[in-house]
Structures are given as structure tokens and as C-alpha cells.
């Protein structure tokens, strides 16, 4: 009897925890600060300190930990990675194709020439002679909508 009650309680806890895994993180994105990804990247330095909200279709998600997602830009062939520390937010892989809003700041990370060309090779692009910079969007809040 006691074991049955305990198992039932644990099952309820599991179900409750499932319901709690919502589509907003840290209260959801602030849509009043919306900036297009192309504009954000064209004025990258400014948005490293100024908080903004970006919007885009989720094109890829970290398969293992859900610690990043790639958002499609309003510009063709352009996208931006939204990156969090492992565990801060966990983006579900099933969110691919949905629309995400992320509020936060931009981080500019210089790459070495080797890293640049590794990245370009993965994107089926020809190698270059000068290193590029990697743009990462560090969110404080996120909303994912269907």
C-alpha cells in the first residue's frame, strides 16, 4: 500500500515536471526591443552593450545539451547562434522550425585563421586568408512560439 502511494506520488511529480517545462525561459523575451538579425550584425559593436530582442526561425539546436540554437536571419544565408551556459536554458531539439524571440546582448568572439577555415569548410565555403569573428547572442530571456 505504502509503496503504491509512493510510486503514484513519484509519477505525479514526473508529470508535473513535464508540464513545467514551458516555452518561455526567464519570463520570456521582451518583444518591445525587437531588432532584426541583419541590423544587429551590421551594428554589432553597439549591441554588445545594448540589450535587444531578436526573432527568427530556429534552424538548428544543440543535439546533446540544448545549449545553443541557430536563428535564421531576415537576410538570405545569414544566421545567428543563441548560446547559453550548459543548463541555464535547455532548448529542445523539437523546436526546429519554430519561431524564437531572444532578449540579450551580442558577444563578438575573434576566431583564429584555422578556426575560421574549419567553420567555412563546414558551411561549404572556400577558405580565406584572414580570420573572421564569430557572433554569439547571449540571451537573458527567450520565448519559443509555434
Amino acid at each position, binding site marked *: 500500500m*505504502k*509503496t503504491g502511494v*509512493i*510510486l503514484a506520488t*513519484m509519477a505525479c*511529480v*514526473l508529470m*508535473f*515536471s*513535464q508540464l*513545467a*517545462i514551458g516555452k518561455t525561459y526567464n519570463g520570456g523575451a521582451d518583444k518591445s526591443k525587437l531588432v532584426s538579425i541583419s541590423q544587429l550584425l551590421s551594428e554589432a559593436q553597439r549591441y554588445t552593450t545594448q540589450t535587444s530582442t531578436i526573432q527568427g*526561425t530556429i*534552424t538548428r539546436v544543440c*543535439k*546533446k*545539451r*540544448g545549449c545553443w540554437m541557430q536563428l*535564421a536571419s531576415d537576410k*538570405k*544565408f545569414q*544566421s545567428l547562434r543563441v548560446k547559453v551556459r550548459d*543548463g541555464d536554458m*535547455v532548448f*529542445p*531539439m*523539437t523546436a*526546429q*522550425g*519554430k*519561431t524564437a524571440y531572444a532578449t540579450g546582448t551580442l558577444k563578438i568572439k575573434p576566431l583564429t585563421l584555422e578556426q575560421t577555415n574549419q567553420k567555412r569548410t563546414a*558551411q*561549404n*565555403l572556400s577558405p580565406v586568408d584572414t580570420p573572421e569573428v564569430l557572433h554569439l547572442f547571449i540571451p537573458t530571456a527567450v520565448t519559443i512560439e*509555434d
Partner: protein
Amino acid sequence: MSWFQLNRSLHRDIGYFCIGMTLVFAISGIALNHIHQFNSNYQVSRITHSVQLENLDLETPYFENQLLQKLALDDTIKARFWPDQTTYKLFLQTSTLYLYPSQNKVIVEQVEPRFLLRQLNALHLNEARAAWMWFSDFYAILLIYLALSSLFMIKGKRGVLGPRGWLVIAGFAAPAAFIYVYSL
């Protein structure tokens, strides 16, 4: 009831209560430790199809309908994206299509959360936050009680004061050795 009997009763009942939580953390712990070898969160399946794509206008409703028919997919396209000049992605409700026009190739990718393991991992990583965090703290306190109360389960030399005490020392020695070896 003496303190000795009370301790044994509490150890037994709290032990029963902790079975579920222990299994949650133990199973997901193994799953998360080996997530680079085995994706315990999602089952990803990819099927490759040969489809004539070269020189076609891919960004039209006509093409999309034809493609879905050809692949026998009863679904709707909710988003489209060109990640690079050679790849076009179509996002359906239940799958993602990768189109490679120059190779006349389409990959249909389906992502399914794994039954139970996905939920256990989510609990382990505290995706639920708030109430689950407090419940986990409560569970941790119960584990501390279970560990300490086990020292007083059997009196005399048949307990930890006898040869079995070495087991307790071994339990401390293992993490201590890791701290020493890896200079943590």
C-alpha cells in the same frame, strides 16, 4: 522505542521513499555521462531520397506540394531557410527536409524525444526549476540522513566498528584519490 530502533525504522522508510528519486538521478546520470556516445534525449532518424532538384525553382508552393507528394509526406511546411548556397531547409510540423539541389538529394530528418529518458534527463538538469530544485534539495538531505544513519544500523564489531568499517573508508578514499590524482 529506543533511538536505535527509531533510527532503523526511519532509515528503512526514508530508504523506500528515496527509491524513485535515486532511480531518476542514477539512470539519468549514466545517460548524461555518456550523451556524447548515445543521445539519450532524442532519437534522430535520417532517410536519404534521390529527387530531381537541379534547375528547379525551389521557392514555390507548386514545387513544395510536388516534393511532399513525392516523399509521401502528409504534412505542411511552416518555415524555409537557406543556411548556405548549397543547402535549402524546409521545416515541417513533424520533420525537417534538407535539400541539396546540386546533388539532387533530399534528406528527411525526424526527431523524436526518447520515452522517459528525455524527462529523466530534464529533471536531472533541473529544467523544471523552482519547485523541483527544492524537492531535490529535500532529497539530498534525506540521502545525507541515509548515509549517516547507516553507520548506526548494527551495533558492535558486526557494524562499522568491525572490518566493515573499511568499506566506509574506501567510500571516502575513492573521491579523495580522484581529487589528488587530478589535482582538483
